[in-house]
């Protein structure tokens, strides 16, 4: 008759009868725990004293799947493009929005073209790294960690977070919006960060003091995942409280796009993610490093409509984000940068798409940029042995400038090297603006 007896009523002999472990085995159980190193240790709000002394904010937008650089920033004067891409080139070249005599933005990047005209868009051409990997996962890891040798396990912004920011009381210092897991870019064993998929559902539901109850359970959790669980919960707890305050203080001042027009829906709601990013920035939650993702760029087939769609979606969401920040008077400290694991093969395939490639452009948007084209547009006639574009700018040059100039961090310490300077950002942190 133990069926309805709660644990507290169970007597010792009942455990025995119920076949529960006891006796010699229980010694081990009651002993409880043995020491293990934290495999996924995180410092819960580890206090850092060397927090960076500026108000600058970075938003990274991942274009997941491998964005076609030749359909983003189009070499409109190059006849070779038509030879390589009879189907894909014709339409896009004619409709492109010129930014220099030889380069035009994808026809659907209208908002970005306006930002270019306003001096708020920089394009870095031909960004890549030596001996490129054509694997989504390897190349994504290279970009995430900033290490083409794949030895580094932590993300470049995760390391920035862990090494530079005082996250005590600021669980939102690093935040991934519009995803359920921690993106590789922000990953670091010592970084505390928040992940918010859907703002509407980010908070505990249920009767009573769920927060308090769960908070009491996720404490000193043993095992290799223990620290990760405890930190995730503590971070969630604080982020939820901060967000509640933020939500009431924020009103969007631009119209974010909707995804309904996408032929091939993206898993990631970039518009919602950027709107959340804006809310976090506008309401002064202490956010510094943000990451959002737009998927669907692996355009092996019928690329023409798919890629144009994605460009339109990116353009709408990003333009709205900028307008929203500007309308709130918050745009001057915010830099947006895109990244993608690779570009695509210059030669199109028989499915009306393109296979995995190498170098592609990085777009930088915001008041902090010095508008212009940096790096070299890769040659379409001097392809490498795999038929891919050769890079002219190491992607770590872009990271270096963001770290040193925008965030005021020590890029050499974070990247473990020094790379060619580019100059797409205005004055370095702390320096007077150029006359």
């Amino acid at each position, binding site marked *: 008759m133990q069926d309805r007896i709660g644990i507290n009523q169970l007597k010792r002999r009942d455990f025995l009868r119920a076949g529960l472990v006891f006796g010699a085995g229980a010694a081990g159980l009651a002993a409880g725990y043995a020491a293990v190193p934290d495999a996924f240790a995180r410092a819960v709000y580890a206090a850092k004293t060397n927090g960076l002394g500026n108000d600058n904010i970075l938003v990274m937008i991942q274009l997941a799947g491998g964005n076609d650089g030749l359909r983003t920033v189009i070499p409109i004067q190059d006849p070779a493009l038509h030879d390589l891409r009879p189907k894909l080139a014709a339409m896009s070249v004619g409709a492109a929005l010129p930014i220099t005599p030889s380069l035009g933005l994808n026809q659907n990047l209208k908002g970005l073209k306006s930002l270019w005209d306003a001096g708020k868009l920089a394009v870095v051409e031909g960004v890549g790294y030596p001996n490129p990997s054509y694997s989504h996962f390897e190349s994504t890891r290279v970009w995430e960690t900033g290490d083409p040798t794949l030895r580094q396990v932590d993300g470049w912004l995760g390391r920035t977070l862990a090494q530079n920011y005082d996250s005590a009381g600021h669980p939102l210092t690093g935040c991934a919006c519009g995803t359920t897991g921690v993106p590789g870019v922000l990953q670091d064993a010592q970084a505390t960060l928040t992940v918010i998929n859907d703002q509407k559902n980010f908070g505990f539901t249920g009767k009573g003091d769920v927060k308090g109850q769960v908070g009491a359970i996720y404490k000193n959790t043993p095992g290799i995942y223990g620290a990760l669980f405890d930190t995730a919960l503590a971070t969630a707890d604080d982020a939820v409280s901060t967000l509640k305050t933020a939500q009431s203080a924020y009103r969007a001042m631009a119209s974010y796009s909707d995804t309904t027009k996408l032929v091939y829906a993206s898993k990631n709601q970039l518009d919602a993610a950027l709107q959340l990013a804006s809310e976090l920035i506008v309401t002064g939650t202490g956010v510094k490093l943000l990451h959002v993702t737009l998927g669907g760029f692996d355009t092996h087939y019928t690329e023409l409509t798919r890629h144009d769609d994605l460009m339109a979606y990116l353009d709408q969401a990003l333009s709205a984000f900028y307008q929203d920040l500007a309308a709130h008077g918050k745009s001057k400290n915010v830099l947006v940068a895109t990244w993608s694991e690779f570009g695509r093969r210059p030669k199109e*395939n028989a499915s009306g798409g393109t296979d995995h490639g190498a170098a592609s452009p990085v777009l930088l948007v915001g008041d902090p940029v010095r508008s212009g084209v940096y790096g070299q547009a890769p040659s379409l006639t001097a392809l490498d042995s795999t038929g891919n574009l050769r890079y002219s700018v190491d992607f770590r040059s872009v990271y270096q400038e963001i770290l040193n100039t925008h965030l005021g961090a020590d890029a050499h310490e974070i990247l473990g090297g020094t790379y060619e300077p580019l100059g797409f950002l205005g004055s370095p942190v702390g320096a007077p603006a150029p006359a």
Partner: protein
Amino acid sequence: MDVTSDDVMDAGRPAGPRRRPNRRQVLGAAAAAGAGAGVLRLLGAGDSQLASLQALGAGRDSTGGRLDWVSPLDQEQAQISHLLRRATFGADSAELAAATSAGYSATVERLLQTPADPPPPMPGGDPTGPLNLGQLQLWWLEHMLNSATPFIERMTLFWHGHFTSDYQKVGVQTPFLHWQNLTWRDMALGDLGTMLSRVTVDPAMLRYLDLGTSIGAAPNENYARELMELFALGVGHYSEDDVRAMAKALAGWVEPRPTGSVQVTLDKANQVVRRLPTYAQPSTGVFVPRRAYRGPAYQLLGKTDSWTTPKALAQVLAQSSTAGLIAGKVVQSFVGVNAAPAYVARLADGFRASGYDVKELMRAVFMSPEFLAPASYRALVKSPTEFMVNALKAVGARNLGQLAAQSAANMGQALFAPPDVGGWPHNDAWISSNNVITRVNFVSQLLGRVRQLPPASDIARHLDSTVSPATASALDAAGDDQTRWFVALASPEFQLK
């Protein structure tokens, strides 16, 4: 089963002996807790036990290291619970009782040998035309909950993460994803060679990785690359030339032809009606010789030949890295992280020697000392699907599959919608602030909808009577069964397997 190997996992685990309070301390703690104290409190952390742990640094040892679970896997009862948590979706009382009376080895054999309990038809009959994604997801979740062979469902989920496909690219205008699920279940414990043949010509896969539009004259590399990188060889075991050669070798397949059509209203308000294809029965892709590559012989993975699809897939199986890639993925999903390379190599050797028989591989895994070693205990994080199905079974709510279906996306695992071609994430990647909240909220909702909870004494079994001091205290402090179940299912312990 005699388990002595403490060092099968070569990282993230202590090199030296484990710290355990001695037996007298422990018994003292038990005595102090006294008769009538809660089982978890007694076994997990009585007050004085808590004190002794705090003396160790409240969950950290004197060197600052975190404390680990003490494995109960030296006892058969715990071994069986551990097995069923990993090989199925956790056991309810009846399943556990049956397995316990059969014993560990016999239970392993039963899991391996029982033919798959086929899923019921989808509501309204198996679709011949367009699919309803929500219905498809729910249909599978309900079968995970109710199937007499949940091990087969667990393996089907494993292959859905390995040979993955995403509804957003495949689309739901055809029944292809439903067919794929049936095929993956049917081949779940078969041999890898047959699997690769079936996967290559699976209509949903033909769409997902574009093989269905590839032609020999200008091949699409998508499937060829992922076949080698993700499905079989692993990165570093083929060259870019091999990717191109494989794409040539496999070109020529197209989707099956529809046998009819059906009028479907896509948008009622705007009266958008479209005619969509129907298919009398599930079928595979069709090979069209004139679409294939028709040039001279060429080299693929070190051998020159006039390659055909069967020859190319045989060449994949002939590569030494293939067995290791599959064995490594199985270990990551069923045994632990950071497995010793020698362990994976041993499993791979056996897998290859068996003619790539997945049943043999799974038997080798479940019967290996490493599977039951202390380092394997709670070494894996349940995926959202495993967590939800396990929770529903634990509280006897097999009728609430809908709750799992609607909660899945915000936990990161909407079925048929993997994040990318790499399939589902693993272990630590499932833990984030977002996912802790969504898992806890799922528990709240679930408990709000269960009319009669099982006795709270069941909890000890679900948690192997091995809980942290914090969880033990919360269970002790709980005033009613609803709260006890909340603590149990929301606890970190229940997220682990």
